[in-house]
């Protein structure tokens, strides 16, 4: 012991180590484990609580939770898809939707925490669902809280919904329980398709804080099978247009629109087909399909050919003619013939060895060019530079571009005064 104490004082770092062990050991004993402290939230739904009827019973009865002097028009209802981690041998997460109503998002979350008796942990948050009415009017107020919260990852998906966010989360909970379909994954993989867009906090903020001030947000809808009155555009759009839940469940989540915001205001809602046209211009896709209707050549007679897109390359070149920017979009598509629909029922050509003929190439080119022209017109119509051509032109020739902008009466509408030229290259896979 004497030797040990002698060595301890002789070696100061050993002493420090011993003190640290003792200090941290006791500190750890005095604190509860984090697993017992937090309720893990994987999804947040935010609704506008217009009157007290929307507030949960527990909140209504609790005067402390909702003061009477609060203007009910400004209330937010926050629904949290939560599970409480319990140390078990099996890996199961039992989810529950809990609610809180408050004057601000942070207050509503705090009040929701009162209902569960735990601290709200947002580190594992995967998706934020915002009611469409709120998204159309006060989206940026909500995003301010979400952007500032250091726990929330920038890759968290953010979507609008055409119903209440609370209903959406309940549907999402059922889907997860019954078929393991996770809504966050749903939106993550949809963004690869040509019919949709990436809809995360990061991409939304990037667009909103960029020079064009245009942010995109996907809108999802929760539906039961009976509610689906008309077939969606899935027949044309293919697999990416909507995702149907499999199994016996009655609920499903579908993509309904893509919201386009400009300068903190909702400009338009784009459908899947419109989004496809715009995505051809901006090149924000990896998968998708392309249908050529009434195609005839030596192999096909009035056939509808469906091509699967396997990859794309897109380049922009800028030139100025009389001070007007001319953007040359060069797109290369790698396609594979995936389906042939024609009067002859039998498959006449071996699709594995299908080579794109000059006629087919011209037809595809025409189709893509038309789509791109429509996409550019959409952007022009809503004066929303979704493709961020502003940056392309600025980086190419700052002086010439700003001279061009100065020459315009309405500089915001610069897309309408620009010239676009498109060339399409097609490769067979």
């Amino acid at each position: 012991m004497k030797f040990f104490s002698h060595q301890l004082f002789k070696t100061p770092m050993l002493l420090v180590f011993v003190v640290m062990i003792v200090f941290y050991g006791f500190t750890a004993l005095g604190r509860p484990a984090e697993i017992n402290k937090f309720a893990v939230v994987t999804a947040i739904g935010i609704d506008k609580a217009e009157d007290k009827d929307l507030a949960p019973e527990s909140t209504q009865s609790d005067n402390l939770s909702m003061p009477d002097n609060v203007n009910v028009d400004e209330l937010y209802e926050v629904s949290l898809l939560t599970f409480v981690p319990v140390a078990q041998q099996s890996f199961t997460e039992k989810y529950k939707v809990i609610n809180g109503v408050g004057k601000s998002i942070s207050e509503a979350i705090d009040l929701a925490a009162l209902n569960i008796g735990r601290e709200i942990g947002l580190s594992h948050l995967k998706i934020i669902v915002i009611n469409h009415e709120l998204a159309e009017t006060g989206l940026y107020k909500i995003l301010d809280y979400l952007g500032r919260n250091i726990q929330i990852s920038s890759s968290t998906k953010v979507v609008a919904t055409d119903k209440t966010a609370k209903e959406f989360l309940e549907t999402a909970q059922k889907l997860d329980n019954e078929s393991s379909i996770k809504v966050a994954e749903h939106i993550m993989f949809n963004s690869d398709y040509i019919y949709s867009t990436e809809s995360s906090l990061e991409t939304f903020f990037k667009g909103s804080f960029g020079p064009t001030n245009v942010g995109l947000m996907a809108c999802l809808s929760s539906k039961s099978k009976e509610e689906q009155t008309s077939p969606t555009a899935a027949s044309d759009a293919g697999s990416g247009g909507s995702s149907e839940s499999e199994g016996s469940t009655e609920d499903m989540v579908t993509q309904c629109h893509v919201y386009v915001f400009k300068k903190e205001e909702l400009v338009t809602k784009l459908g899947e087909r419109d989004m496809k046209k715009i995505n051809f211009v901006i090149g924000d896709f990896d998968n998708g399909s392309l249908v050529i209707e009434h195609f005839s050549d030596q192999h096909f007679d009035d056939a509808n050919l469906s091509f699967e897109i396997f990859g794309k390359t897109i380049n922009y070149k800028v030139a100025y003619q009389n001070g007007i920017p001319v953007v040359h979009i060069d797109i290369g598509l790698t396609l594979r013939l995936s389906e042939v629909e024609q009067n002859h029922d039998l498959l006449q050509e071996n699709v594995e060895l299908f080579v794109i003929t000059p006629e087919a190439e011209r037809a595809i080119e025409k189709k893509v060019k038309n789509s791109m022209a429509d996409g550019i017109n959409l952007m022009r119509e809503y004066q929303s530079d979704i493709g961020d051509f502003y940056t392309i032109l600025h980086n190419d020739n700052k002086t010439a571009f700003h001279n061009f902008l100065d020459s315009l009466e309405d500089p915001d509408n610069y897309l309408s005064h620009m010239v676009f030229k498109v060339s399409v290259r097609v490769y067979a896979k």
Partner: protein
Amino acid sequence: MKVFDRSINVWQAGILLFVLMFANKILVLPSLLFEGAGMESIFILIFFFLLELGLVLLFLALKKKFPTQSFSQILISHFGKIVNVCFFVAFMIFFFAKAVLLYNVTYIFFRNLIYKDTSNLLILFCFLPVINHLAISGLRVMGRTCQLFFPVILSIIVFCVIVGVFGIGSRAIWFQSSWMDVLLTAAKHIEPFGDAIFLFVVMDKINIKNGDWKVMFYLFAISAVLVVATALVFMLSYTYTSFMHPYAVFEIVSFVKEFGGLGRIDIIAMVVIIILAYFHLAIYLKCFMFAFEQVFPKIDKIYSVITFNFLFVVTVIFFIINLETAVTFGEQILPYAEIFPFFILPIFVLIALAIKNKNVQKKPENGGNLQKILKNNERKELNNSQNKSILQNLNIASHLQNVNIPSHNLNYQQQKQKILKKQQKQVKLLKLNKKQKILNSKNNILGNKNNISNEEKNNLKSKNTQKSGFFCNKFQFIAEKEGA
């Protein structure tokens, strides 16, 4: 408690410089720079690194002119004691302020990203003992520890940059900020730079051999490139939202993790931030200690550590308690401190370099070999006629250690080295003579005269003086010419 300060070689000094170049630059700085100057903030980084390079060049020039003198000795001999004290007070404040800023940013990083309930005291308790130990153990221990961690730091940062490149996807807008924005941002965020002045503080502890200075430049260049690359990758990954992400090196790895298929590789970035934070704080403390020693020469060195710890804990706990305060401190107070490394210090160094024939030998060097060997009592003994010629040669040779010989004159350099080698032989001879003298006196007492040993002694003396005679005369001439 004793403080051990032994000299370090140029590799260790270079690695310390390499490590210090990351201080306060790879976490919060890129985000703040982007907020002020957009993508053009990259040029701010490059510009400041060029200024930093200027400091390294000044240091090398000074080291070349005064190879064995400390910065304090140079200041005293050229500008007087008051300037010296003022300078080292400035050093103390500078390094202390830097340490406070660095600690706060690191603490807030850990609190936000690892454990939000952690208290400042708890983290202080992790940092202070280790950095105190490193600083007390001495510069050489610190240098060697840094050498050990150098490959780890280098490989992790390179890894982070390479992984971060995969996250670059969006289009960044260039040249949107005005020159005024860039200048204002540069002035506001100059505080992480100027760390290269630590070289001046430890000047006399660095041994630089001929040609070794290149190592320092290579290491400096690598760290500068890595800092710029980290900032560039970060800005290209996050573009317009860069200002929302305050921890650059962590965020670039995190971005790929979030959007790619990789797991939690952001932990790797955390590891390097921890290692760097320890070394940065230890180097700052060491520099504070050196400066404290110059300001209060009569106080024991250990009090410098105690002072630093006391001030550090008080400042950290009571004054700078969150990221906002830390950033305000960094943006509004510390930029004024940068006048010292980038303006005042270079002017004084340039004056010291410009002044010729200053009596650099006035203060004997603590590292001079001859002064250590030739003690005063030995000199008294050697004042007999037999050893006078040897002593004369030795005096000339000892003077040569401090005589400034132009680097381009290789003949002189070679000759100087030869003479210095010979002087070592002569020292041995002198010792031999001394022993012989004692032996002779003993023999005289005993009545046995030993003529053989005297002959040997004379032979050796004549042999050495003949060999070195030509060079000694030549250098004697130079020394006389320089007024020594």
